[in-house]
């Protein structure tokens, strides 16, 4: 199971990074591979390649703003939440992503 995510908040310093840490922590606990692209105040970090996106079984957008390069994810199964949601229930969100990733 491979999951990719994008984290982005309004200021791009606090919630973006907290969301990233939460999702990475949940993924580690669930033993699932995740890569989180950070779209923050310092630009784009940990950028997802198109092949990483293509290979992913599911996508999580943890965003309070728009995703830069959203067209890269066209046709993917996407779960979209606010950054704060990942602070409250990142395990659940990850599980939802796993569930949709497992669907044929």
């Amino acid at each position, binding site marked *: 199971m491979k999951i990719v995510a994008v984290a982005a908040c*309004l*200021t791009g*310093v*606090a*919630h*973006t*990074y*907290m969301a*990233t*840490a*939460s999702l990475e*922590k949940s993924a580690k606990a669930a033993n699932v591979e995740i890569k989180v692209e950070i779209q*923050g*105040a*310092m630009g784009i970090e940990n950028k997802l390649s198109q092949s990483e996106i293509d290979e992913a079984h599911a996508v999580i957008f943890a965003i*309070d703003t728009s995703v830069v390069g959203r067209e890269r994810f066209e046709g993917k199964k996407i779960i979209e939440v*606010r950054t*704060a949601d990942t*602070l*409250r229930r990142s395990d659940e969100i990850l599980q939802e992503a796993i569930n949709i990733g497992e669907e044929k």
Partner: protein
Amino acid sequence: MNKVNRENIILNLSAKTKDEAIKKISTKLYDGGYISNEIDFLDSVIHRENQNSTGIGNGIAIPHGASDAVVKSTVMFAKLENPIDWDSLDSLPVEYVFLLAITKKEHGDSYIRVLANLAKLLMDADFVEGFKRANSLEEIYDSLNRGEN
């Protein structure tokens, strides 16, 4: 680079509301020369706060403002004398406040990376336990900067 400077740690801050807490901590930022204008900075923090609360749960809040009034990016840490309501994600009152001041300069400054790492660390239970268990300014300073070279 230190995450939190020693002089940016406030113990037993007395405040009845989150607005009062943010205002009092902002005054310290002004006194420290980190912001050039308190009102402009406060506007940016309150504006952000009104979009959704920065009470991240677990007794912690991380209010922040990005403003032209920020001379150099930094963070102030305050332990409140009494926990106050912050409209937090878990509805619990807040006792620990990290107020981030973020420059709006086009390419930011090197401290923004430190602030981002700090935000990430707030998701780490050991890090959080460290500053919650600390009793003195020195212990808080050490716990917040643990692992820094």
